[in-house]
């Protein structure tokens, strides 16, 4: 049944891709973003240096907007996109990585944007999740949507919510295996939620404040998984952007594949690799 569901999902994804490719222009937009960082974990095994990475690109993109004569900033924007992306943190010492959760995703989605309503995207996704050593890994597929609005409260703030509901097919998950006492790893449904708010500040030292919260909850988790505390994962981060490209951040909680609940302190700066 699980394999059947996987096949149906990929047929849907491939069908969507082929339908779009008939008239779509090949997209050239790709980006890679790397941030060196120092991570200090209160409950972990000490500090380590690492790199936060993210990349994204479009395989296909098709716009639906109508022609207009004048430049109109209030124009409605609509499109369908097939894209790929990845993100995570890789530490010099993988055993000291408190954000040990790497993601690689392929998705097909619709996008709609209007000046008063904000911007929303949604559609099918498939995702590969693993830890840095690739010892724990799982495949996830399902439906997702993201909504965001600039200047929601003031002139230059931003708020966003990202929600996904999908089937998780665990390939290797040492903690889950241990909790289930060696039983086979069955697929399960999971809800993900991510919330972001950014607010500008007019102070001499701090230019803006950010709060990010990620939440994962398993639907109808077995008792053994609930008792082991593996049915829910959450991570909250508050960050102050300082002058001179510096930032300080504090995180509490854990993501899937993280070893334990933790409190993480980060200080970093932005740097470009050419």
């Amino acid at each position: 049944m699980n394999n059947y569901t996987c096949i149906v999902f990929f047929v849907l994804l491939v069908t969507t891709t082929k339908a779009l490719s008939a008239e779509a222009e090949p997209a050239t937009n790709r980006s890679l973003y790397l941030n060196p960082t120092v991570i200090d974990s209160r409950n972990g095994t000490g500090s380590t240096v690492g790199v936060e990475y993210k990349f994204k690109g479009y395989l296909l993109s098709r716009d639906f907007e109508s022609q207009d004569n004048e430049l109109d900033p209030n124009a409605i924007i609509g499109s369908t996109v097939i894209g790929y992306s990845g993100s995570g943190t890789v530490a010099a010492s993988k055993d000291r990585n408190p954000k040990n959760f790497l993601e690689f995703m392929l998705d097909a989605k619709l996008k709609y944007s209007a000046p008063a309503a904000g911007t929303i995207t949604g559609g099918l996704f498939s995702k590969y999740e693993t830890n840095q050593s690739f010892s724990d890994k799982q495949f996830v597929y399902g439906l997702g949507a993201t909504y965001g609005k600039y200047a929601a409260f003031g002139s230059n703030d931003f708020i966003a919510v990202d929600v996904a509901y999908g089937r998780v097919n665990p390939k290797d998950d040492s903690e889950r295996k241990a909790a289930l006492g060696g039983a086979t790893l069955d697929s399960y449904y999971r809800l993900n939620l991510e919330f972001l708010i950014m607010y500008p500040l007019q102070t001499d030292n701090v230019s803006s404040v950010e709060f990010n919260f990620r939440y994962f909850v398993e639907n109808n988790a077995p008792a053994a998984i609930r008792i082991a505390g593996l049915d829910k994962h959450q991570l909250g981060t508050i960050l102050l952007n300082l002058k001179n490209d510096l930032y300080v951040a504090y995180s509490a909680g854990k993501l899937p594949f993280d070893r334990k609940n933790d409190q993480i302190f980060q200080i970093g700066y932005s740097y470009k690799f050419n």
Partner: protein
Amino acid sequence: MANTKSQYEWKENNACVATYKVLEADNFLDQFEDADIPFAKAHSVKLKNLRYFPQTTTNPQIIEVLSLEIARKFVTHLVKVFTISKQNSAATSAAIITSIAKVFADGEKTIRDLAEIVDANIKFPDEN
């Protein structure tokens, strides 16, 4: 090795000045202070160092939504400052905003890159 790719020239034309003004001004996007980043040095500033770019998430869906929202706001402010029109009348307003959004979504792009895409898509009074 010499860089053979010609780079867009950052100068006091309408496209560069408008890009700088909309990003900097307190009553527009207020992404930096002119005392910290004067016009002459703004071209090399990476967009990830501006206030709109998030540091607490690497979620590409959120960054994509954010970039489209701020690109629309950017164009809204542009039309307040200058009497502008499309470079190519066949291009839709939505396509122009989307092109600008793609630059905003890439934190490694610079303010010069933003001015270049603005100049390529929008006709200013000094280009008539």
